[in-house]
Protein backbone atom coordinates (compact mmCIF):
# COMPACT_ATOMS: atom_id res chain seq x y z
CA UNK A 1 0.00 0.00 0.00
CA UNK A 2 1.30 3.43 -0.87
CA UNK A 3 -0.60 6.51 0.09
CA UNK A 4 0.22 10.16 0.03
CA UNK A 5 -2.09 12.13 2.23
CA UNK A 6 -2.02 15.91 2.25
CA UNK A 7 -3.93 16.13 5.53
CA UNK A 8 -3.84 12.80 7.28
CA UNK A 9 -6.49 12.44 9.97
CA UNK A 10 -4.40 10.10 12.05
CA UNK A 11 -0.94 8.96 11.16
CA UNK A 12 -1.09 6.27 13.83
CA UNK A 13 -4.20 4.69 12.32
CA UNK A 14 -2.53 4.66 8.91
CA UNK A 15 0.49 2.93 10.43
CA UNK A 16 -1.47 0.20 12.15
CA UNK A 17 -4.03 -0.41 9.40
CA UNK A 18 -6.50 -3.28 9.53
CA UNK A 19 -5.31 -6.09 11.80
CA UNK A 20 -7.27 -8.71 9.88
CA UNK A 21 -5.36 -7.92 6.68
CA UNK A 22 -1.88 -8.25 8.11
CA UNK A 23 0.38 -10.99 6.72
CA UNK A 24 1.82 -13.73 8.91
CA UNK A 25 5.15 -12.81 10.45
CA UNK A 26 8.08 -13.68 8.16
CA UNK A 27 11.27 -14.95 9.81
CA UNK A 28 12.77 -16.40 6.65
CA UNK A 29 13.96 -13.43 4.64
CA UNK A 30 16.71 -11.96 6.88
CA UNK A 31 19.34 -14.66 6.34
CA UNK A 32 19.07 -14.36 2.55
CA UNK A 33 19.35 -10.57 2.65
CA UNK A 34 22.41 -10.80 4.86
CA UNK A 35 24.02 -13.28 2.48
CA UNK A 36 23.36 -11.05 -0.55
CA UNK A 37 24.78 -8.05 1.33
CA UNK A 38 27.89 -9.98 2.35
CA UNK A 39 28.43 -11.20 -1.23
CA UNK A 40 27.89 -7.71 -2.67
CA UNK A 41 30.29 -6.10 -0.23
CA UNK A 42 32.88 -8.82 -0.82
CA UNK A 43 32.63 -8.00 -4.53
CA UNK A 44 33.69 -4.42 -3.71
CA UNK A 45 36.06 -4.71 -0.80
CA UNK A 46 37.43 -8.19 -1.45
CA UNK A 47 39.71 -9.51 1.25
CA UNK A 48 40.98 -6.07 2.30
CA UNK A 49 41.05 -5.55 6.04
CA UNK A 50 39.36 -2.28 6.89
CA UNK A 51 40.87 -0.69 9.99
CA UNK A 52 38.22 2.02 9.92
CA UNK A 53 34.79 0.62 9.02
CA UNK A 54 32.65 2.06 6.25
CA UNK A 55 29.60 3.39 8.10
CA UNK A 56 26.26 3.58 6.27
CA UNK A 57 23.48 5.65 7.80
CA UNK A 58 20.02 6.67 6.65
CA UNK A 59 21.36 10.16 5.95
CA UNK A 60 24.07 8.65 3.72
CA UNK A 61 21.42 7.01 1.57
CA UNK A 62 19.09 10.00 1.52
CA UNK A 63 21.28 11.86 -0.95
CA UNK A 64 23.39 10.52 -3.80
CA UNK A 65 27.16 10.63 -3.41
CA UNK A 66 28.83 13.91 -4.40
CA UNK A 67 25.71 16.06 -4.01
CA UNK A 68 24.97 18.78 -1.48
CA UNK A 69 21.74 18.66 0.45
CA UNK A 70 20.48 21.80 2.15
CA UNK A 71 18.77 19.61 4.74
CA UNK A 72 22.18 18.74 6.11
CA UNK A 73 22.87 22.39 7.01
CA UNK A 74 23.19 23.10 10.71
CA UNK A 75 19.91 25.07 11.13
CA UNK A 76 17.95 22.31 9.40
CA UNK A 77 19.60 19.62 11.50
CA UNK A 78 18.93 21.69 14.62
CA UNK A 79 15.25 21.94 13.76
CA UNK A 80 15.07 18.25 12.96
CA UNK A 81 16.61 17.22 16.29
CA UNK A 82 14.29 19.51 18.23
CA UNK A 83 11.16 18.17 16.51
CA UNK A 84 12.42 14.65 17.19
CA UNK A 85 12.71 15.47 20.91
CA UNK A 86 9.12 16.72 20.87
CA UNK A 87 8.02 13.45 19.28
CA UNK A 88 9.65 11.54 22.14
CA UNK A 89 7.85 13.64 24.71
CA UNK A 90 4.54 13.37 22.86
CA UNK A 91 4.70 9.57 22.75
CA UNK A 92 4.92 9.28 26.54
CA UNK A 93 2.06 11.72 27.00
CA UNK A 94 4.15 14.64 28.23
CA UNK A 95 2.56 18.08 27.92
CA UNK A 96 4.43 20.49 25.65
CA UNK A 97 4.21 24.05 26.95
CA UNK A 98 7.01 25.75 25.02
CA UNK A 99 8.14 23.72 22.01
CA UNK A 100 11.69 25.11 21.77
CA UNK A 101 12.38 25.25 25.49
CA UNK A 102 10.97 21.80 26.25
CA UNK A 103 12.77 20.20 23.33
CA UNK A 104 16.05 21.84 24.31
CA UNK A 105 15.78 20.65 27.91
CA UNK A 106 15.00 17.11 26.79
CA UNK A 107 17.92 17.14 24.35
CA UNK A 108 20.37 18.59 26.87
CA UNK A 109 19.50 15.85 29.37
CA UNK A 110 20.48 13.20 26.83
CA UNK A 111 23.45 14.71 25.07
CA UNK A 112 24.83 17.73 26.95
CA UNK A 113 28.09 18.01 24.98
CA UNK A 114 26.62 17.94 21.47
CA UNK A 115 28.13 20.45 18.98
CA UNK A 116 24.70 21.34 17.58
CA UNK A 117 23.49 22.07 21.09
CA UNK A 118 26.45 24.40 21.57
CA UNK A 119 25.42 26.13 18.35
CA UNK A 120 21.90 26.52 19.69
CA UNK A 121 23.29 28.14 22.81
CA UNK A 122 25.20 30.66 20.68
CA UNK A 123 22.13 31.90 18.79
CA UNK A 124 21.25 35.53 19.42
CA UNK A 125 17.74 36.56 20.47
CA UNK A 126 16.46 37.14 16.93
CA UNK A 127 17.76 33.83 15.62
CA UNK A 128 16.35 32.05 18.65
CA UNK A 129 12.92 33.64 18.17
CA UNK A 130 12.91 32.58 14.51
CA UNK A 131 13.90 29.05 15.44
CA UNK A 132 11.23 28.94 18.13
CA UNK A 133 8.52 29.97 15.64
CA UNK A 134 9.81 27.47 13.11
CA UNK A 135 9.92 24.55 15.57
CA UNK A 136 6.48 25.40 16.95
CA UNK A 137 4.98 25.49 13.44
CA UNK A 138 6.47 22.10 12.58
CA UNK A 139 5.37 20.72 15.91
CA UNK A 140 1.76 21.88 15.53
CA UNK A 141 1.53 20.31 12.06
CA UNK A 142 3.07 17.10 13.29
CA UNK A 143 1.18 16.66 16.57
CA UNK A 144 -2.18 17.30 14.88
CA UNK A 145 -1.47 14.69 12.24
CA UNK A 146 -0.04 12.09 14.61
CA UNK A 147 -2.73 12.17 17.27
CA UNK A 148 -2.36 10.20 20.47
CA UNK A 149 -0.31 7.03 20.31
CA UNK A 150 -2.06 4.31 22.36
CA UNK A 151 0.34 2.77 24.88
CA UNK A 152 -0.98 -0.75 24.15
CA UNK A 153 0.73 -0.50 20.76
CA UNK A 154 4.05 -0.40 22.58
CA UNK A 155 5.41 2.81 21.04
CA UNK A 156 9.12 3.39 21.52
CA UNK A 157 11.11 6.28 20.19
CA UNK A 158 14.64 6.77 18.94
CA UNK A 159 15.16 3.04 18.41
CA UNK A 160 18.77 2.38 17.47
CA UNK A 161 20.17 -0.44 15.38
CA UNK A 162 23.66 -1.41 14.37
CA UNK A 163 24.51 -4.23 12.00
CA UNK A 164 28.05 -5.36 11.36
CA UNK A 165 28.92 -6.83 7.96
CA UNK A 166 32.08 -8.00 6.22
CA UNK A 167 33.71 -8.95 9.50
CA UNK A 168 33.12 -5.50 10.96
CA UNK A 169 34.41 -3.68 7.87
CA UNK A 170 30.97 -2.24 7.11
CA UNK A 171 28.56 -0.95 9.73
CA UNK A 172 24.91 -0.24 9.03
CA UNK A 173 23.67 2.22 11.63
CA UNK A 174 20.13 3.42 11.96
CA UNK A 175 17.80 5.29 14.29
CA UNK A 176 14.04 4.98 13.80
CA UNK A 177 12.11 7.92 15.24
CA UNK A 178 9.08 5.90 16.31
CA UNK A 179 8.38 2.17 16.27
CA UNK A 180 5.08 0.57 17.21
CA UNK A 181 4.04 -3.07 17.43
CA UNK A 182 6.06 -6.07 18.53
CA UNK A 183 8.05 -8.80 16.84
CA UNK A 184 6.44 -11.39 19.13
CA UNK A 185 3.07 -11.43 17.33
CA UNK A 186 1.93 -14.19 14.97
CA UNK A 187 1.15 -11.57 12.35
CA UNK A 188 3.49 -8.80 11.20
CA UNK A 189 2.81 -5.79 13.39
CA UNK A 190 5.94 -3.63 13.58
CA UNK A 191 5.54 -0.23 11.91
CA UNK A 192 8.51 2.09 11.49
CA UNK A 193 7.92 5.81 11.38
CA UNK A 194 10.21 8.71 10.61
CA UNK A 195 9.50 12.40 10.80
CA UNK A 196 11.36 14.90 8.67
CA UNK A 197 11.16 18.67 8.69
CA UNK A 198 11.95 18.79 4.95
CA UNK A 199 9.56 18.11 2.05
CA UNK A 200 9.48 14.47 0.97
CA UNK A 201 11.69 13.62 -1.97
CA UNK A 202 13.24 10.59 -3.63
CA UNK A 203 15.63 10.29 -0.70
CA UNK A 204 12.74 9.74 1.70
CA UNK A 205 11.78 6.48 0.00
CA UNK A 206 15.37 5.26 0.15
CA UNK A 207 15.44 6.03 3.88
CA UNK A 208 12.16 4.18 4.42
CA UNK A 209 13.55 1.13 2.64
CA UNK A 210 16.76 1.34 4.66
CA UNK A 211 14.84 1.41 7.95
CA UNK A 212 12.93 -1.70 6.86
CA UNK A 213 16.13 -3.48 5.83
CA UNK A 214 18.07 -2.75 9.03
CA UNK A 215 15.08 -3.65 11.19
CA UNK A 216 14.74 -6.96 9.30
CA UNK A 217 18.44 -7.73 9.79
CA UNK A 218 18.31 -6.76 13.46
CA UNK A 219 15.26 -8.77 14.50
CA UNK A 220 15.30 -11.42 11.74
CA UNK A 221 11.63 -10.48 11.30
CA UNK A 222 10.14 -8.50 8.41
CA UNK A 223 8.30 -5.40 9.68
CA UNK A 224 4.76 -4.64 8.56
CA UNK A 225 5.24 -1.20 7.08
CA UNK A 226 7.47 1.84 7.03
CA UNK A 227 6.42 5.47 6.81
CA UNK A 228 7.74 9.01 6.67
CA UNK A 229 5.91 12.16 7.59
CA UNK A 230 6.95 15.65 6.52
CA UNK A 231 6.13 18.31 9.08
CA UNK A 232 6.94 20.91 6.41
CA UNK A 233 4.18 19.86 4.03
CA UNK A 234 1.96 17.52 6.09
CA UNK A 235 2.58 14.69 3.61
CA UNK A 236 2.64 11.11 4.79
CA UNK A 237 4.23 8.33 2.76
CA UNK A 238 3.39 4.79 3.87
CA UNK A 239 4.72 1.61 2.27
CA UNK A 240 4.09 -2.01 3.18
CA UNK A 241 7.36 -3.88 3.54
CA UNK A 242 7.78 -6.60 0.92
CA UNK A 243 10.65 -8.62 -0.48
CA UNK A 244 11.05 -6.30 -3.46
CA UNK A 245 11.50 -3.30 -1.17
CA UNK A 246 14.12 -5.08 0.92
CA UNK A 247 16.02 -6.32 -2.13
CA UNK A 248 16.05 -2.81 -3.54
CA UNK A 249 17.46 -1.48 -0.30
CA UNK A 250 20.17 -4.14 -0.34
CA UNK A 251 21.20 -2.90 -3.81
CA UNK A 252 21.23 0.70 -2.57
CA UNK A 253 23.38 -0.20 0.44
CA UNK A 254 25.84 -2.10 -1.76
CA UNK A 255 26.00 0.86 -4.16
CA UNK A 256 26.57 3.20 -1.23
CA UNK A 257 29.42 1.02 0.09
CA UNK A 258 30.86 1.05 -3.43
CA UNK A 259 30.80 4.87 -3.51
CA UNK A 260 32.47 5.09 -0.10
CA UNK A 261 35.09 2.55 -1.16
CA UNK A 262 35.97 4.60 -4.26
CA UNK A 263 36.17 7.79 -2.17
CA UNK A 264 38.82 6.09 -0.04
Amino acid at each position, binding site marked *: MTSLLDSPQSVVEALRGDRLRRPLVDHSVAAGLRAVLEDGIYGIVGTALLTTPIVVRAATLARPSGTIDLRSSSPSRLRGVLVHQLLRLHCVGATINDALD*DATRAWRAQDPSNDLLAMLDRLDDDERARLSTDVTAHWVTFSRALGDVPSRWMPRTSVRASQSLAGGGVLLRDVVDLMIGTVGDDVASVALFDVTTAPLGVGAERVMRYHALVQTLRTSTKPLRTATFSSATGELLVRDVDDEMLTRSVDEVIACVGDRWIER
Partner: protein
Amino acid sequence: MTTLVHRRLVAAQLDQLVAESPASPTVLSADHRRSLTARFRAVSTGQHRRLDAWSVEQAGRPDASFQWSPASARRTIGNRALGRLTTTATASLAEAVSDEVTDHLLRATSGYARPGSLAHWLASASAPVMGVVRAEAVNWATQLCEVAVGLEASWQVASNDAYYDVAAARTTLRARRDLVVARGDDRVVVRLRSGAPGKSAGAGLRADLTIETLAHPSGVSPVRFIGLWPEAGVCLAVDATMADLRSGARDLVRTAMVRRRDHDTRAA
Protein backbone atom coordinates in the same frame (compact mmCIF):
# COMPACT_ATOMS: atom_id res chain seq x y z
CA MET B 1 39.21 -23.68 27.94
CA THR B 2 36.57 -20.97 28.22
CA THR B 3 33.25 -20.95 26.37
CA LEU B 4 31.51 -18.31 24.28
CA VAL B 5 28.40 -18.98 22.18
CA HIS B 6 27.19 -16.48 19.58
CA ARG B 7 23.60 -16.48 18.27
CA ARG B 8 21.13 -14.18 16.50
CA LEU B 9 18.70 -12.66 18.98
CA VAL B 10 15.47 -14.42 18.02
CA ALA B 11 13.08 -16.26 20.32
CA ALA B 12 13.86 -19.74 18.98
CA GLN B 13 17.63 -19.29 19.34
CA LEU B 14 17.29 -17.88 22.82
CA ASP B 15 15.05 -20.77 23.86
CA GLN B 16 17.65 -23.14 22.51
CA LEU B 17 20.38 -21.37 24.48
CA VAL B 18 18.36 -21.81 27.66
CA ALA B 19 17.34 -25.41 26.97
CA GLU B 20 20.81 -26.54 25.91
CA SER B 21 22.74 -24.98 28.76
CA PRO B 22 25.07 -27.30 30.72
CA ALA B 23 23.40 -30.02 32.74
CA SER B 24 24.63 -28.89 36.13
CA PRO B 25 26.03 -25.74 37.73
CA THR B 26 29.51 -25.29 39.17
CA VAL B 27 29.90 -24.66 42.89
CA LEU B 28 32.54 -22.35 44.35
CA SER B 29 33.82 -23.59 47.69
CA ALA B 30 35.08 -21.65 50.69
CA ASP B 31 38.61 -22.34 49.45
CA HIS B 32 37.86 -20.62 46.17
CA ARG B 33 36.53 -17.59 48.03
CA ARG B 34 39.58 -17.49 50.31
CA SER B 35 41.90 -17.71 47.33
CA LEU B 36 40.14 -14.83 45.58
CA THR B 37 40.17 -12.74 48.74
CA ALA B 38 43.92 -13.26 49.12
CA ARG B 39 44.51 -12.07 45.57
CA PHE B 40 42.42 -8.94 46.02
CA ARG B 41 44.07 -8.19 49.37
CA ALA B 42 47.45 -8.37 47.63
CA VAL B 43 46.36 -5.45 45.44
CA SER B 44 46.15 -2.79 48.08
CA THR B 45 43.88 0.20 47.67
CA GLY B 46 43.62 3.51 49.45
CA GLN B 47 39.93 3.79 48.89
CA HIS B 48 37.00 1.43 48.44
CA ARG B 49 36.93 0.02 44.91
CA ARG B 50 33.94 -1.15 42.97
CA LEU B 51 34.42 -3.49 40.04
CA ASP B 52 31.96 -4.85 37.53
CA ALA B 53 31.82 -6.25 34.01
CA TRP B 54 32.09 -2.76 32.50
CA SER B 55 35.38 -2.07 34.30
CA VAL B 56 36.71 -5.40 33.00
CA GLU B 57 35.58 -4.58 29.44
CA GLN B 58 37.25 -1.18 29.71
CA ALA B 59 40.48 -2.84 30.88
CA GLY B 60 40.36 -1.01 34.19
CA ARG B 61 40.23 2.49 32.73
CA PRO B 62 38.77 4.78 35.39
CA ASP B 63 35.09 5.63 34.93
CA ALA B 64 33.90 9.18 34.55
CA SER B 65 32.13 10.27 37.71
CA PHE B 66 28.61 8.86 37.72
CA GLN B 67 25.67 11.15 37.30
CA TRP B 68 22.03 10.36 36.65
CA SER B 69 20.72 10.87 33.14
CA PRO B 70 17.84 9.41 31.13
CA ALA B 71 20.23 6.74 29.83
CA SER B 72 21.49 5.74 33.28
CA ALA B 73 18.00 5.76 34.81
CA ARG B 74 16.27 3.66 32.13
CA ARG B 75 17.43 0.25 33.36
CA THR B 76 16.35 0.74 36.96
CA ILE B 77 12.95 2.13 36.01
CA GLY B 78 12.43 -0.15 33.01
CA ASN B 79 13.18 -3.38 34.90
CA ARG B 80 10.95 -2.44 37.80
CA ALA B 81 8.19 -1.44 35.39
CA LEU B 82 8.32 -4.83 33.68
CA GLY B 83 8.27 -6.50 37.10
CA ARG B 84 5.25 -4.39 38.01
CA LEU B 85 3.50 -5.35 34.78
CA THR B 86 3.94 -9.05 35.55
CA THR B 87 2.70 -8.83 39.13
CA THR B 88 -0.04 -6.19 39.04
CA ALA B 89 -2.98 -5.31 36.82
CA THR B 90 -1.15 -2.51 35.02
CA ALA B 91 -2.50 -2.11 31.49
CA SER B 92 0.70 -1.35 29.59
CA LEU B 93 4.43 -0.88 29.94
CA ALA B 94 4.09 2.87 29.48
CA GLU B 95 1.68 3.01 32.42
CA ALA B 96 3.94 0.78 34.50
CA VAL B 97 6.84 3.13 33.78
CA SER B 98 4.73 6.15 34.78
CA ASP B 99 3.70 4.40 38.01
CA GLU B 100 7.32 3.57 38.75
CA VAL B 101 8.43 7.18 38.23
CA THR B 102 5.57 8.33 40.48
CA ASP B 103 6.73 5.91 43.18
CA HIS B 104 10.21 7.41 43.03
CA LEU B 105 8.79 10.92 43.33
CA LEU B 106 6.66 9.89 46.32
CA ARG B 107 9.74 8.42 47.97
CA ALA B 108 11.59 11.69 47.42
CA THR B 109 8.80 13.90 48.74
CA SER B 110 8.29 11.70 51.79
CA GLY B 111 11.95 12.13 52.69
CA TYR B 112 13.03 8.52 52.16
CA ALA B 113 15.35 9.27 49.25
CA ARG B 114 18.98 9.97 50.04
CA PRO B 115 20.88 12.68 48.13
CA GLY B 116 22.35 11.26 44.94
CA SER B 117 19.67 8.61 44.56
CA LEU B 118 17.51 8.21 41.47
CA ALA B 119 14.43 9.39 43.35
CA HIS B 120 16.26 12.49 44.50
CA TRP B 121 17.41 13.28 40.96
CA LEU B 122 13.98 12.71 39.47
CA ALA B 123 12.42 15.02 42.03
CA SER B 124 14.66 17.83 40.84
CA ALA B 125 14.23 17.13 37.10
CA SER B 126 12.12 19.33 34.85
CA ALA B 127 9.02 17.97 33.09
CA PRO B 128 10.74 17.54 29.68
CA VAL B 129 13.64 15.66 31.30
CA MET B 130 11.14 13.45 33.10
CA GLY B 131 9.46 12.82 29.74
CA VAL B 132 12.73 11.63 28.19
CA VAL B 133 13.42 9.44 31.23
CA ARG B 134 10.06 7.78 30.68
CA ALA B 135 10.68 7.41 26.95
CA GLU B 136 14.06 5.74 27.59
CA ALA B 137 12.60 3.48 30.27
CA VAL B 138 9.76 2.43 27.96
CA ASN B 139 12.33 1.53 25.27
CA TRP B 140 14.33 -0.53 27.74
CA ALA B 141 11.32 -2.30 29.22
CA THR B 142 9.86 -3.05 25.77
CA GLN B 143 13.10 -4.66 24.61
CA LEU B 144 13.27 -6.79 27.75
CA CYS B 145 9.58 -7.66 27.51
CA GLU B 146 9.90 -8.80 23.88
CA VAL B 147 12.73 -11.11 24.88
CA ALA B 148 11.02 -12.45 28.00
CA VAL B 149 7.61 -13.07 26.46
CA GLY B 150 9.23 -15.15 23.71
CA LEU B 151 10.81 -17.54 26.22
CA GLU B 152 9.20 -20.92 26.77
CA ALA B 153 10.78 -21.37 30.20
CA SER B 154 9.42 -19.48 33.21
CA TRP B 155 11.24 -16.26 34.03
CA GLN B 156 11.18 -13.36 36.40
CA VAL B 157 12.67 -9.91 36.36
CA ALA B 158 15.67 -9.73 38.67
CA SER B 159 14.69 -7.58 41.62
CA ASN B 160 18.26 -6.40 42.19
CA ASP B 161 21.82 -6.84 40.97
CA ALA B 162 24.25 -9.32 42.52
CA TYR B 163 26.80 -7.82 44.94
CA TYR B 164 29.76 -9.53 46.56
CA ASP B 165 31.90 -7.80 49.12
CA VAL B 166 35.41 -9.26 49.20
CA ALA B 167 36.26 -9.64 52.87
CA ALA B 168 38.93 -7.27 54.18
CA ALA B 169 39.94 -6.20 50.68
CA ARG B 170 37.84 -3.02 50.47
CA THR B 171 36.39 -4.33 47.22
CA THR B 172 32.79 -4.67 46.09
CA LEU B 173 31.95 -6.68 42.99
CA ARG B 174 28.70 -6.06 41.15
CA ALA B 175 27.03 -8.19 38.49
CA ARG B 176 24.09 -6.74 36.61
CA ARG B 177 21.23 -9.09 35.86
CA ASP B 178 17.89 -8.38 34.24
CA LEU B 179 16.07 -11.70 33.85
CA VAL B 180 16.39 -14.93 35.78
CA VAL B 181 15.14 -17.89 33.76
CA ALA B 182 14.32 -21.15 35.52
CA ARG B 183 15.68 -24.38 34.07
CA GLY B 184 14.59 -27.11 36.41
CA ASP B 185 16.31 -26.45 39.73
CA ASP B 186 18.97 -24.38 38.01
CA ARG B 187 18.93 -20.85 36.70
CA VAL B 188 20.04 -19.04 33.58
CA VAL B 189 20.78 -15.35 34.04
CA VAL B 190 20.10 -12.87 31.23
CA ARG B 191 21.52 -9.40 30.94
CA LEU B 192 20.41 -6.74 28.45
CA ARG B 193 23.07 -4.48 26.96
CA SER B 194 22.97 -1.45 24.71
CA GLY B 195 25.02 -0.97 21.55
CA ALA B 196 26.90 -3.83 19.95
CA PRO B 197 29.20 -6.36 21.64
CA GLY B 198 32.87 -5.47 21.47
CA LYS B 199 35.92 -7.71 21.55
CA SER B 200 35.86 -7.83 25.35
CA ALA B 201 32.17 -8.75 25.64
CA GLY B 202 33.00 -12.35 26.51
CA ALA B 203 35.32 -11.25 29.30
CA GLY B 204 32.55 -9.00 30.63
CA LEU B 205 30.07 -11.88 30.66
CA ARG B 206 32.55 -14.10 32.49
CA ALA B 207 33.06 -11.37 35.11
CA ASP B 208 29.28 -11.15 35.55
CA LEU B 209 29.06 -14.93 35.83
CA THR B 210 31.80 -15.06 38.46
CA ILE B 211 30.29 -12.31 40.58
CA GLU B 212 26.81 -13.83 40.27
CA THR B 213 28.23 -17.12 41.55
CA LEU B 214 30.17 -15.51 44.39
CA ALA B 215 27.04 -13.61 45.44
CA HIS B 216 25.06 -16.85 45.78
CA PRO B 217 25.02 -17.89 49.46
CA SER B 218 26.14 -21.43 48.59
CA GLY B 219 28.38 -20.42 45.69
CA VAL B 220 26.12 -22.14 43.12
CA SER B 221 26.58 -20.72 39.66
CA PRO B 222 23.87 -20.18 37.07
CA VAL B 223 24.21 -22.84 34.38
CA ARG B 224 24.61 -20.18 31.71
CA PHE B 225 24.98 -16.39 31.59
CA ILE B 226 23.50 -14.77 28.50
CA GLY B 227 24.13 -11.22 27.28
CA LEU B 228 21.64 -9.70 24.86
CA TRP B 229 22.42 -6.84 22.49
CA PRO B 230 19.04 -6.01 20.89
CA GLU B 231 20.44 -3.03 18.92
CA ALA B 232 22.80 -5.39 17.13
CA GLY B 233 20.33 -8.30 17.16
CA VAL B 234 22.81 -10.73 18.72
CA CYS B 235 23.29 -12.60 21.97
CA LEU B 236 26.39 -14.11 23.52
CA ALA B 237 26.48 -16.71 26.25
CA VAL B 238 29.09 -18.20 28.55
CA ASP B 239 28.72 -21.50 30.38
CA ALA B 240 29.37 -21.92 34.07
CA THR B 241 32.48 -24.07 33.75
CA MET B 242 35.27 -23.78 36.28
CA ALA B 243 37.50 -22.44 33.49
CA ASP B 244 35.04 -19.60 32.80
CA LEU B 245 34.70 -18.78 36.48
CA ARG B 246 38.50 -18.74 36.90
CA SER B 247 38.88 -16.54 33.85
CA GLY B 248 36.26 -14.12 35.22
CA ALA B 249 38.02 -13.96 38.57
CA ARG B 250 41.42 -13.42 36.91
CA ASP B 251 40.04 -10.54 34.84
CA LEU B 252 38.56 -8.90 37.92
CA VAL B 253 41.86 -9.12 39.83
CA ARG B 254 43.72 -7.84 36.77
CA THR B 255 41.32 -4.90 36.56
CA ALA B 256 41.99 -4.11 40.22
CA MET B 257 45.73 -4.15 39.47
CA VAL B 258 45.37 -1.79 36.51
CA ARG B 259 43.28 0.58 38.64
CA ARG B 260 45.93 0.47 41.35
CA ARG B 261 48.73 1.16 38.83
CA ASP B 262 46.78 4.09 37.37
CA HIS B 263 46.22 5.46 40.84
CA ASP B 264 49.92 5.17 41.67
CA THR B 265 50.92 6.84 38.40
CA ARG B 266 48.59 9.77 39.02
CA ALA B 267 49.81 10.13 42.58
CA ALA B 268 53.48 10.15 41.55
